[in-house]
């Protein structure tokens, strides 16, 4: 009798086991299209142009961790929008470092964005129905990334304010905190020094500097035996804005996560960005120079 009971329990157990949900980039893309529709509703409410804003698509080695980070950036835009409408700002969600980002987490990010937009709509009394996500096929993370970039631009237009150096500075501070955590974890004495402030700096200088940070990071990732993503497509040479710097810092943060995971910082979540005002490209450049000098201190992992 006990054996029979055990057998019955095991059978029930097996019956309950379901295959883990898998999410494809196409499914994520479908959710991003839904975000786009929600965004259209907001645009319609504020009588913004119907035509989507043209954003140059990048062709880079985009991985799920970059898409995840792009979702984070879009959430920061929603925060800026909330601030504009006197709604309290929220902190976008962060995640523990992972070596290889599971695409399901990027899907989860799209759900957070959808919820956040719906909350904004409810708070501002924006009516309308976006409907359900349509089935999409054949999409890759790069497509999701580019679509999110375009939606980001829509929200920039909705917010109306320039996405100035203050946002890039906030992300650079997060990067600084991440590097500090790594230095402490490795037991390295932080005697790095910031460079002298270049008061004539422009966003192009900051973009050059963040690529220097990325170079240092890639050196460390090689030391750790990790793959390196080619982000050279983001190395613009003209019409560089503070947003380009912000974007690149966020992607560098994404690049940092596998390294944190690899060296054992598996439960150390990146700190939320603080809100800064009136920061200049000179501030961003100096801070990124400081971060670069800190990374140079790490010669062994």
């Amino acid at each position, binding site marked *: 009798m006990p054996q029979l009971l055990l057998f019955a329990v095991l059978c029930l157990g097996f019956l309950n086991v379901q295959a883990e949900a898998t999410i494809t980039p196409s499914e994520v893309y479908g959710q991003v299209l839904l975000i786009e529709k929600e965004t259209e509703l907001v645009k319609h409410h504020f009588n913004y142009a119907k035509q989507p804003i043209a954003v140059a698509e990048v062709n880079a080695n985009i991985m799920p961790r970059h898409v995840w980070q792009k979702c984070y950036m879009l959430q920061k835009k929603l925060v800026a929008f909330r601030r504009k409408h006197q709604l309290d700002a929220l902190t976008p969600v962060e995640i523990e470092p992972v070596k290889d980002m599971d695409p399901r987490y990027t899907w989860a990010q799209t759900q957070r964005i959808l919820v956040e937009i719906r909350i904004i709509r409810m708070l501002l009394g924006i009516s309308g129905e976006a409907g359900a996500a349509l089935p999409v096929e054949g999409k890759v993370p790069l497509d999701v990334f580019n679509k999110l970039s375009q939606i980001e631009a829509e929200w920039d237009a909705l917010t109306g304010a320039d996405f100035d150096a203050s946002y890039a500075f906030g992300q650079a*501070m997060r990067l600084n905190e991440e590097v500090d955590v790594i230095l402490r974890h490795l037991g390295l004495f932080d005697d790095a020094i*910031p460079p002298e*402030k270049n008061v004539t700096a422009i966003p192009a200088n900051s973009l050059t500097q963040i690529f220097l940070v990325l170079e240092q990071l890639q050196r460390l990732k090689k030391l750790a035996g990790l793959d390196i993503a080619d982000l050279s497509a983001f190395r613009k040479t003209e019409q560089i804005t503070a947003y380009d710097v912000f974007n690149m810092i966020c992607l560098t943060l994404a690049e940092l996560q596998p390294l944190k995971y690899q060296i054992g910082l598996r439960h150390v979540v990146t700190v939320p960005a603080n809100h800064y005002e009136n920061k200049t490209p000179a501030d961003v450049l100096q801070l990124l120079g*400081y971060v670069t000098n800190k990374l140079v201190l790490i010669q062994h992992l």
Partner: protein
Amino acid sequence: MFKLVRLKAKFAMLFYAVSLGAMLIVGWYGYENAKNAYMKAALDLAKGYTSEVSVHIEDVLHLSHSDLNFIANSYAVQRHAYWIDIGEEDKQRQYHQIVADTLRGFVVSYANDFKIRIIDIDGREHIKIRRNLETNLTQISSDNELEDESQRDFFSQTMLLPKGQVFVSSLDLNTEKGKIETPHLPVVRLATPLIGDNKVRYGVVVINVLAESFFKYIRDANNNQQERVFYLIASNGDYLFHPDSEKTFGSLLGHRANFEQDFPTLLSQIKQNKKGVITDANNIISYQAIYPALNNDENYWVLVGVVPISFALKDLLSFEYAFVGLFLFVIVLVFFSSHYFLGNLMRPLEFVTRQLQSL
């Protein structure tokens, strides 16, 4: 008889002259030597005390030099400056607290320090730690107690110095909100530029050293039975330390008391050498220049020790008494002995003379 008497007198005079003359010569020689020895002893003592007190004063100042450079190069102070420059307020506050606590610990530990300040590149006090001399507690000044020091020499002069060099202000009275604080508190301000390892100039670190921390050595040296008095004077003759504190800081407080007035013409002589001894009609004056800034010969104070000659040669008086007493005794002795011996000598001669005269 007259001729014999004259002979006796001649003998007596010769006897007196030889014995008393020899004694006077020996006495004079002894007196001069003793006098020189007493003078030399007084000079050596004055020089020794002057040198010793100078060393104490310089030790206090050199210690403050080291403290200042330690503070300016300390990790937290440098990072605090970096984050101010970068413009991140959270980090700035975090290091502000660390720096303030560190400096407070410094003031608590070092009784010489009255005030330590970090002044930013615009001359505005950024962190100020001050000792309350009544309670001996230290406190971090609040924002509304911070002052603009951009017009003060210790700020403007220090901003021109390279890293590691120290500016030392004149020794004067502490001020708060631009006014001399009462009761008067003599301080000397040592300042060094706050320059980051990236060669960027971020401001100035200033320590107000309590002058009492080295005045106490002068006061100790003045506590003697030999009427020896030490003064610390500025190069313009103002008393920085005087046993009568009412005489100090004449130029600053608008009274006329100064060294030149009390010891006319000496100041110019003193200023000709870094150290030495001068004797005038009444005093032995030992002096030594003190350079509070290692790299600036223009800024100096002079420690002056004054010993009255009358006191230095006081012990010579007993020599004089002893000599006079001895001299009188010898005169009496010579008188009676010469009288006795000359009498014995002259008696046969007088007998022979009388016999010859009777023939």
